[in-house]
């Protein structure tokens, strides 16, 4: 499946590279149900040197050393503090680092007052590839190329964060801190559902995609993944209800210019997903799961808030703040000219599920269960 392959994806023609979306599961006028089993900023970092030739951002250790030196600690003392959390100076040094912003002459939290700290000028991604879509319909020097489709891509979020350590992953590997956060919260936070409806989902044609929040958290399987074929109830609140018109073409489900998307979350990282000019591309895996990318413009300050709200993110938060601010590419503020939105892409994965409305009526069934029982696949391996 295309989303699982890590090589030669950059130039492969889409029709040849992707598997048929639903070809293995012919059914008529059905609605298939899924729950989002994993969600994070889309990353693509097979060629780190190509993306980040200067390699000057470093990771958590490099960031801490830089900060401590800026605060006036000698090299050997800074190294000792970084290497030993119990170092006598560690507590004081950490406090100084986190309150090095100066507001009205007093130290203040850098997270609350990022503009009160100088721009550390992180290296931005200058590589060729990023996942996403052509959001603005224009060709410009900042465009990336999608490694799956070969089409041009607006994804300035990737440009801003692509050279930081926790985003060095490439699917199926996941960006470390977002993966960690998701795994911490998935057992308690209500999940999100996805419904796909169409006259004949085994063929190309128009489909409708509906996204909602559900009232229950997801449940894990014995291998730590998300259980297939569980039944979830859709939250009746319209706040997180989203409908998009899409199309299955050459087996891939596309949504283009889908308008706004809003999903309320509870996680420290993904407290909300809010996109404008939503685009989607979704493919099916052999195990009935689906995976794909959602793209659009998001408020870059909200993204930074998500990032800094997460405990111990281990990255140069202020550097990322400035990187996003500089990379933002849409919705200029009429007064300052500063762009308020940034093009971005999320990667999502979802597993088959039964979905019910609040009255208990089943409104979507898993792809496998929508067939006659006799057609169910060998369940070994789900």
């Amino acid at each position: 499946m295309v989303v699982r392959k890590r090589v030669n994806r950059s130039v492969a023609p889409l029709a040849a590279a992707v598997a048929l979306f639903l070809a293995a599961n012919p059914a008529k006028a059905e609605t298939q149900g899924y729950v989002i089993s994993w969600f994070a900023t889309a990353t693509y970092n097979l060629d780190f040197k190509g993306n980040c030739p200067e390699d000057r951002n470093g990771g958590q250790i490099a960031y801490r050393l830089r900060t401590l030196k800026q605060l006036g600690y000698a090299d050997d003392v800074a190294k000792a503090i970084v290497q030993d959390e119990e170092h006598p100076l560690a507590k004081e040094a950490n406090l100084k680092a986190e309150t090095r912003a100066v507001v009205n002459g007093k130290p203040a939290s850098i997270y609350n007052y990022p503009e009160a700290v100088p721009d550390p000028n992180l290296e931005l991604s200058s590589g060729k590839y990023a996942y996403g879509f052509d959001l603005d319909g224009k060709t410009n020097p900042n465009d990336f190329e999608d490694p799956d489709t070969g089409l041009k891509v607006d994804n300035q979020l990737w440009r801003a964060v692509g050279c930081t350590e926790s985003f060095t992953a490439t699917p199926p590997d996941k960006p470390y801190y977002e993966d960690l956060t998701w795994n911490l919260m998935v057992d308690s936070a209500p999940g999100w559902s996805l419904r796909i409806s169409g006259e004949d989902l085994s063929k190309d044609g128009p489909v409708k995609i509906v996204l909602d929040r559900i009232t229950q958290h997801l449940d894990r399987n014995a291998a730590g993944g998300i259980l297939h074929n569980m039944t979830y109830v859709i939250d009746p609140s319209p706040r997180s209800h989203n409908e998009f018109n899409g199309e299955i073409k050459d087996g891939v489900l596309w949504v283009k210019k889908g308008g706004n998307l809003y999903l309320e979350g509870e996680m420290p990282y993904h407290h909300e997903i809010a996109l404008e000019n939503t685009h989607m591309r979704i493919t099916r895996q052999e195990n009935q799961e689906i995976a794909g990318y959602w793209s659009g413009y998001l408020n870059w300050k909200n993204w930074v808030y998500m990032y800094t709200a997460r405990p111990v993110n281990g990255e140069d938060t202020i550097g990322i703040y400035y990187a996003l601010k500089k990379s933002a590419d849409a919705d200029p503020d009429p007064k300052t000219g500063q762009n308020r939105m940034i093009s971005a892409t999320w990667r999502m994965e979802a597993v088959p599920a039964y979905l019910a409305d609040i009255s208990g009526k089943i409104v979507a069934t898993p792809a496998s269960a929508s067939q006659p029982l006799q057609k169910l696949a060998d369940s070994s391996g789900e």
Partner: protein
Amino acid sequence: MKNVRVSLRRGLIAAVSLVSLAAATPAIVVWAADTAPAADEPTSVRLSPSQFRQTIADVFGTGIVISGRFEPEVREQGLLAVGARKASITDMGLERYDELARNIAAQVVDERNRVTLIPCKPKSATAADDACARTFLASAGKLLYRRSLNDGELAALVKVAGDSANGLKDFYAGVGTSVANMLVSPNFLFRYKFVEADADNAGKFRLDSFSKAQALSYLLWNSTPDAMLIDAAESGKLHTKAGLQFQVDRMLSSPRVEGGIRAFFSDMLGFSDFEVLSKDPMFFPRYTIRVKEESQEQTLRTIVDHIVKRQGDYRDLFTTPNTFLTRALASLYAVPLVETTDNGQPMRWIPYTYPEGDPRAGILAHASFVALHSPAGRTSPTGRGKALRENILCQAVPAPPGNVDFSAVEQASRELSTARERLAAHATQPMCAGCHKITDPMGLALENFDSSGGYRTTENGAQIDTNVEVSGVKISGAAGLAKAIHGDPAAVSCVAKRIFAFGAGRLPLATDVEWNRIEKAFASSKYNVLSLMREIALSDLFYRPQNIQLASASGK
């Protein structure tokens, strides 16, 4: 407290090895070493883990947490309940029981529980109060020992409680010491059968009334007799027909009968094997620890609903579309199950009815059967067929020879994709073919269920064929097998015998006139299991001592 406990425990180790504790039950004839009963007649039966738990729950409430492992159980004649007659307690096992006893006793006298469990308040919480201790220990001891304590026993327990209380300056700790002592006493850990001369039939013998009460209580409730039953035993009413009938009907109408049904079917269906059951999570990710636990509960709930609440025909358990599921189990079976509780609430059990003709109907299609009798990574039609023959039909299946080559069965290949193909190859070994003819057809009918209980139609890409022939009858799939079991007289005969053995610790003789009458009554009741239990509980056969010779009876 520790010194007291240690010295008592040493004494108890010796007491356990002696088994018969005549002093505990004066005026009752016990087995003499030279007058041992027939081999199939148990004189003492160790409490099973489930009986231990249920008894503690019934005496002290369900709030008492019992954590710890028990002595291993032995299965005989298809039941752990029969094997329990040969079970002893090892030194290490006694250490475990001692730990359990201390833990339970500490909870009983804990500040949270003492107000409700101890019916009196001591004059001082920091000193002995013999009167209060006696009141509590007499009432608790009656339920734990399943009879009233004699004066000597009670005095000893009160003294231990008092000495301990004064030493520790804590009345409740003192009482706790005596509770712990009772919980490691053979009088609690073992159920004894004592016989006495039958006053109504000169020259004959019968179980004494306390032994009768215990047999009745553990058959119907899997727990200790309650105060009313012990009172009936003490008054002698249990020896009268009307008195026995009153108690049996009272007990069968109690909600506690559910405990007896659950314990019996857990034993009959071999649920103790779940302790060592595991599945490969890479192949069967839906088989979680939760599903493993809940699959047993699914079957037990289905059985209790069918047998206790609906009073249904036992045979219909194999075909009933009615069951109970949680969302996790529904995921395993790939069926929708809507639950509208708030996020974070425990999953609820929800009634579920399969559509007509669905192969997942009936308890043989539950994961508690098809998963329990499958190895970690594949199914075993042989294992399932063997379990069906032995557990459901009471038929014996010989063990495989020691030098069998299982490679054809265990390893899938391009040529041998399905279990049917692999077993056919294996059966070419002449020494294997005979037994596999007995087991495999039934198991192959269940091949649409993978090792975890999930439904499938293919194995390694090949279509699964579930058409088989059993004793000349063609059967198709799980539904066909369920119908065949439903109509097999061996199924009802088996459950009847096993229920009798569950309570009596021995199988009934098939030629026994009384047993034949019970079997006919079972059929007349349309195989109502509660009616069967009533017939057994009211029959002389159930309480009849076997092959008694009491040379020392009069001398006692």
